């Protein structure tokens, strides 16, 4: 990357990357560090509560799912659910706050940093929070003895990919949002159905065929289809397909959100 870069002459121009996104990531990290204690506690407590509560509560009444105990089945869902949530909240609420409420983006844009750098840093930062959240859940899974497989280490890059995917999708919503209330639509109409349709709490096969078809299009399904075998010491079937779908959502989401942000901030 050369130091000099031509500014986008069009909303639809391809993104231009530079290393200037790094200081923005560091800025967000410094903010996070100030509240790291409560953030990490949340990252750990949430999955523990879910897994213990639902794992014992529901799991006690349920037979094994395939070869797995319900708690082991659930743990793969919770990894994906947590990483999705981390990136989504960061891209929506915190991202909107930086763009609109605190005008952090305006301040940054007066420096040699461009909007492309900022949007890229938002995606990478939100994915970093997913990574952290995925690590926390993995730690809980190991501590509870629900996975002994070395393959479970693949959960770490998977958490990053899921983070990139949902960060990029979330930023589309942020780019369109008039205010914080708007985010309820996304959580109610997109995130919640995704949690219920994508095999987090129960196998997708339990759903009617139509909903199974819908489910196969949703990114969270592909994340769960990767995480569950990995935690159960198996190489996921069709793993390239699942990775491609998640990457596709990430790249498309990033590009669409960038176009929308360019439009929004040129006003």
């Amino acid at each position, binding site marked *: 990357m050369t*130091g*000099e*870069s*031509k*500014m986008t*002459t069009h909303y639809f121009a391809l993104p231009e990357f530079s290393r*200037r996104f790094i*200081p*923005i990531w*560091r*800025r967000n990290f*410094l*903010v996070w560090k*100030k509240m790291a204690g409560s953030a990490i506690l949340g990252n750990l407590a949430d999955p523990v509560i879910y897994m213990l509560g639902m794992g014992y509560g529901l799991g006690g009444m349920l037979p094994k799912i395939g070869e797995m105990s319900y708690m082991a089945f659930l743990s793969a869902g919770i990894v994906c659910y947590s990483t999705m949530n981390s990136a989504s909240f960061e891209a929506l609420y915190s991202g909107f706050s930086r763009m609109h409420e*605190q*005008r*952090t983006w*305006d*301040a*940054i*844009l*007066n*420096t*040699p*940093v*461009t909007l492309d750098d900022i949007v890229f840093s938002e995606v990478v930062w939100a994915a970093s929070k997913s990574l952290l959240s995925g690590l926390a859940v993995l730690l809980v899974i190991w501590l509870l003895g629900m996975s002994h497989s070395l393959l479970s280490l693949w959960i770490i890059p998977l958490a990053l990919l899921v983070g990139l995917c949902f960060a990029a999708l979330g930023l589309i919503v942020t780019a369109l949002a008039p205010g914080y209330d708007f985010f309820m639509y996304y959580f109610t109409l997109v995130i919640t159905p995704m949690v219920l349709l994508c095999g987090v709490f129960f196998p997708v096969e339990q759903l009617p065929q139509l909903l199974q078809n819908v489910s196969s299009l949703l990114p969270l399904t592909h994340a769960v289809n990767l995480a569950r075998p990995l935690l159960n010491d198996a190489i996921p079937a069709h793993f390239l397909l699942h990775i491609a779908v998640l990457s596709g959502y990430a790249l498309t989401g990033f590009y669409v959100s960038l176009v929308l942000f360019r439009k929004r*901030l*040129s*006003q």
Partner: protein
Amino acid sequence: MNAVLSARDLRKSYGDQIVVDGLNLSIQRGECFGLLGPNGAGKTTTLRLMLGLIEPDAGELRLFDHAVPDQARAARLRVGVVPQMDNLDPDFTVAENLLVYGRYFGISDAVIEARLPDLLEFANLTHKRDVKVTTLSGGMKRRLTLARALVNDPEVIFLDEPTTGLDPQARHLIWQRLRELTAHGKTLLLTTHFMDEAERLCHRLAVMDNGRIISEGSPRELIEQNIEPQVVEVFGEHAAAWAQGHAVHHAQRFEVSGETVYCYVSDAQPLLQELQQHPELRYLHRPANLEDVFLKLTGREMRE
């Protein structure tokens, strides 16, 4: 001439609203240039165009040797900006705000740390170094924003209404600092709608309205070119009636605004003698100033 910034026939519209309408401007190294205009005149849009944050519909713009917006990134490396609205990082202390901002320019932490004491002293914030910015007063925040704009040791500083919302003490301190910057050879471009601010600080001014520059020159030139040298303000219930009957004979021009009549004259003596006959009217005789020019050029009606 040694122009740091030049704009030729710059145009920008949003929908069918023309915001910048054929703007021509040239700013020399080391000068303090003021862009004056009522709200909505296009000042902020002009600044954003100059920084390459939005693209012009037409026209040519150069900042240093860089074509803007194409090479705006390289140009912004040498520019400091004090925005109209506060956008300091509320989660950070005073020092952290400067550190984090300096990193956006690619400056190493060590270099920023070395610059910190001077920047803090310039902003009179040395004692607030490790205090969260949310606890600072409005004036302190402005000073910190000014210090932040200097973190990359810029050659040109853009200031968008730098003293709006500040009390007189805070304004005077900012003015003093801005004079120090020009004394050190920095080029300043500031927008304002405070005429006293423009008159005190600026070497050269442009009055902008409806996206165009309607007059340009030093404060003194603007007054000489646009307006009669003396003003007599006449106050009182009957001032307007008096003006219709008498002021017309003694003043080149007069304007009625509520219960005040502004009489513009080259020689005030005949008018002042006439006023002696009307003890019910109070009056103030003063030299014409920039505000008179501004109101003449842009009108007295409210802009909302």
